[in-house]
Each structure stands twice: as C-alpha cells, then as structure tokens.
C-alpha cells in the first residue's frame, strides 16, 4: 500500500523526508533546509546550530552559534521564584504528568511579565525603533496601545521589570557578555544606552529585554523570538518539577489565605 494518490499534503520549506524502499512511513533520510540531518549534521552540528537552521533556514556563523548558545544558557533556568517554574513545580509536586508540567510552564511563561509575549512585544519595539534613541523615547513615553486581543493590555514597557528598582547584576552580566560577542548592532547599543532607556521608563531592564535584543541581533522575527524564549526556558521548569516530586508536597509552600467575604465569619 502507498499513498501515491493522496491529494492532502503538508507544504514545507523546512523538511524533506525520503522513505525506505519498503515503507513510505519509515524515513531513510531527512533533510532540514537541504542539510542531511542524520547523514551529515549528526555528530557535527551543535544543538543550537540545529535550532538556528530550523528557524532561519541557513547554517549559522560561528559567532551566531556562540551568541545563541550563550543566551540559551542564560535562559535555561529562570529559577524556582519565576512564575513559569513555580507553575511547573505545582505540577511536579502533585505527581502530574511530565507534559502537564511543561504545559504549565509554557502557559504561565507565555505572558507579558517576563514571558514569551513580552519578548514578542519587545522585539516589535526593536523593529520600530532600531538603535534610534529618539524613537525609543517616543515609543516608551507613548500611552499603551489599547488594541483589544486575547492578551491583556500591557501594564509596563516590554523588556523592563515592572517591580524592579535597579538593574539586577545577572541582567547586567548577561547583557555585558552577550553584547561582547554579538555580531549585531542592538545588543552593543542596548549596553551603551541601558541607563537612558531605564530612565525613560523609570524601570530597570529585565532579562526578557536582553533576550529580545539578542534574538533581534540573530535576525529572528518577533514570532520566532517568542517561540525560542518559551522553548529555551523549559529545561529549568522540567528539572524543578521533577525535583519537587522527589522532595514531596509536605515541603512545598501552600500559603495562607485571607478570605474577605467568608459567610461563616460574617454570620458570627
């Protein structure tokens, strides 16, 4: 049996698969944008090179590889205080499925506070303003867009920490490291102009802002940057979820509650 007469097809520029002679459902060779994945890349290509090819369609330069790998290390574990990792731990501590822990991390980490959509919006800002400080001034001091969508209205300029006071050391370290190896214009410009931008919004730069500049320098679109940010933060979520299952729910915070309209209390 084969599917020679099939009219339903997946159109793709990314992936070509050649079948084994005896089975059209078994892969003899797979090509990613023309590169032989199992016959040429395997054992040669690094993980981030594969990532870059998948999103950009071309092999990265060594400088691009280094930049992507470095930001991947910076993003790999947002830590257990981060809401997305917290969500994953809520799954892990109760023995929820592995996928649900990652889904929890993705759902929470998708948002506009340190999340994927914040990176998307921050990259849109880079697309609008580039390295023009006056354009940033206009953008950052303009009222938030009230366009209605599924996403809640922005409550702070994307890429900055709504509850920060000064730039955290790890953000400065990440920016310095990435700006030092970047082949683009945005990370070095951000490193140079960070204080000015922070003064415009009265908030410190956040790691999401550094990630957005990095993805922009690597030539990713806003949508690609959003996806990568979601993806690259998952390892920590996974590890912390597994750890909480081992530690057990009795040691996991449950927190107190103050019910403002408790009918039992009102009856008393």
């Amino acid at each position: 049996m084969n599917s020679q007469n099939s009219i339903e097809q997946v159109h793709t520029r990314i992936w070509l698969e050649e079948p084994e002679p005896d089975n059209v459902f078994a892969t003899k060779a797979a090509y990613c944008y023309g590169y032989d994945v199992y016959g040429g890349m395997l054992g040669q290509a690094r993980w981030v090179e594969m990532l870059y090819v998948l999103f950009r369609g071309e092999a990265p330069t060594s400088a691009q590889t280094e930049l992507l790998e470095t930001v991947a290390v910076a993003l790999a574990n947002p830590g257990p205080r981060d809401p997305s990792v917290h969500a994953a731990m809520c799954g892990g501590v109760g023995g929820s499925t592995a996928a649900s822990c990652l889904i929890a991390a993705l759902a929470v980490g998708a948002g506009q506070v340190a999340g994927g959509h914040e990176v998307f919006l921050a990259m849109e800002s880079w697309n609008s303003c580039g390295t023009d400080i006056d354009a940033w001034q206009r953008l950052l001091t303009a009222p938030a867009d009230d366009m209605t969508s599924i996403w809640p209205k922005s409550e702070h300029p994307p890429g900055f920490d709504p509850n920060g006071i000064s730039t955290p050391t790890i953000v400065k370290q990440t920016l310095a490291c990435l700006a030092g190896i970047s082949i683009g214009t945005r990370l070095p410009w951000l490193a140079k102009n960070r204080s000015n931008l922070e003064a415009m919004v009265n908030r410190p730069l956040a790691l999401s802002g550094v990630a957005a500049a990095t993805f922009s320098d690597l030539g990713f679109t806003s949508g690609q940057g959003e996806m990568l940010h979601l993806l690259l933060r998952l390892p920590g979520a996974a590890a912390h979820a597994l750890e909480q299952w081992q530690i057990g729910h009795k040691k996991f915070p449950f927190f107190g509650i103050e019910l403002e309209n408790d009918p039992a209390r009102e009856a008393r």
Partner: protein
Amino acid sequence: MNGPELLHQHIDRLKSSMGACFPGERAIFRGHDLHVELKNMDWIELYVFGITGRRFTEKQLSLLHAIWVCTSYPDARIWNNRVAALAGSSRSTGALGIAAALAVSEASIYGGGIYIPSINFLKRTLKALNKGVELVDCVRDELKKHRSIAGYGRPLVSGDERIVPIMSLARSLGLGDGPHVQLAFEVDELLAARRWRLRINYGAIAAALCADLGLSPYEYYLFVFPAFLAGMPPCYIESSERPEGTLFPLSCDHILYEGPPKRSWKSGKSG
C-alpha cells in the same frame, strides 16, 4: 505603589474574595458555601457565576448552554479537535490531549482570537450608533483598521449552520431580539448589500447574545472558551480505540518539500 514594597505586601498570603477551601470543613465560592448555598446549581450556572458573580435566569442559562452545544463538533479533522484525536492515536492521556486542544482553540482566525474583538466591535458600534454615527461608517472604519470584522466571514466556508438553531432557540426564549443581536444582523445585511463578501458567522451571534445578557467582553471570553469542549472527548476516544498511530498517518509522500536543494553541512562558518 510598585517595586519590592508592593511584592512584600503580597508575600505568603492570598487575599481573596473569590473563595477558599478549608480542607475537611467547607469550601467558599464567591462568598457562598459551595456545599450548602450553591449545591443545587447546575455546572454551567456555577461556571458563569464564577466568572461574573451574577445569577442568571433559567431561560438565560438555557441559552448559554445552547451556545456551547451548537458548536461542539466531534469531527477530528477540525484543527483543534485533531489535537485531541492525535493525542488519542499517539496514546497520550485524555487530559493532555483535550487541554491542548482547548488551548489551540484560542486561534487567530477562529475561536479564542475572535471572541473579544467581536463583542467589542458590537458594543463599540452600538454606542456609536446611539451617538448618531452611521452604521456604514462604523463598518468601513473597522474594515480599514483590521481588514476584517471579527464575527464575519469564515476560514473554510461562507455559510454558518449554527445560526439558525441558536437563533431559533434564542427567540423561543425571548432572548433573540436584543440590541446587539439586531445590530449583528444589520451589519450582515450591510456587508451583503455592499458585496464585502463577509457573511455573519456564529462568533458574531454568540457575542451578540452574550452582550445582550450583560456579559462584558472579558466575561464573554472566559464563558465561551470551552465552547468546543464537548466535541473533543469523542475525537480522543475514537482515535484511542483504533490501532495506535492510525489517525491521519502521513507518509513521506504527504510532505511537499518547497525548500532549498540538498547541500553539505559545515559547522561553524566563520563570521
């Protein structure tokens, strides 16, 4: 106030008027004892009460039920349902498949991405009409801004089989002639008369009916997002009962490659 001071105020305690569970004792739901005061609510009544904090009449609840019923299609070809079905075929869990299918329902060209823009358009337009603006100007503005009107047009076909049954029920309940519903159909007539090729779809009708029930855009969004849910478990079940991996298997011939030709890999290009 913001910054660490604000965060400190919220440390380790949840202040809530929505509810709490007192394990072994009771559960409070929006200020009411769930097992005493609310124990006779049906599920959708409780769900809408949870969203709005308001009570709805029996007729209104019948309509809200029907809004979900009319759009629950157990057809595994539909993109969101297909996710549930693929989970069944791939022998994943039902909860994962159906939760993912629901999440996927928040799409740009159908489902979740339409809910808020459609109810917003109707509410905004009704306000404008009440101020004397012409409907044609509202429609033209919307088309100019977004190149489409949420709730009008459909990705695969132009007609919508859900409109007649939901409107028939709504009218029988005395809930089919509210101002937003009337407006929704007036927009449809205008679009047809001007040959804008966007016919009304279920999204506009559901939004209009809910707007006439007093739901805000956000309340409507939260109410309607599980609207496809009832169609999903059947898709999961059927594909999980078939031999594994047999839902829409894709052979190599199903992949139409349109990318660059084969080339050699070389790691670490300089630059």
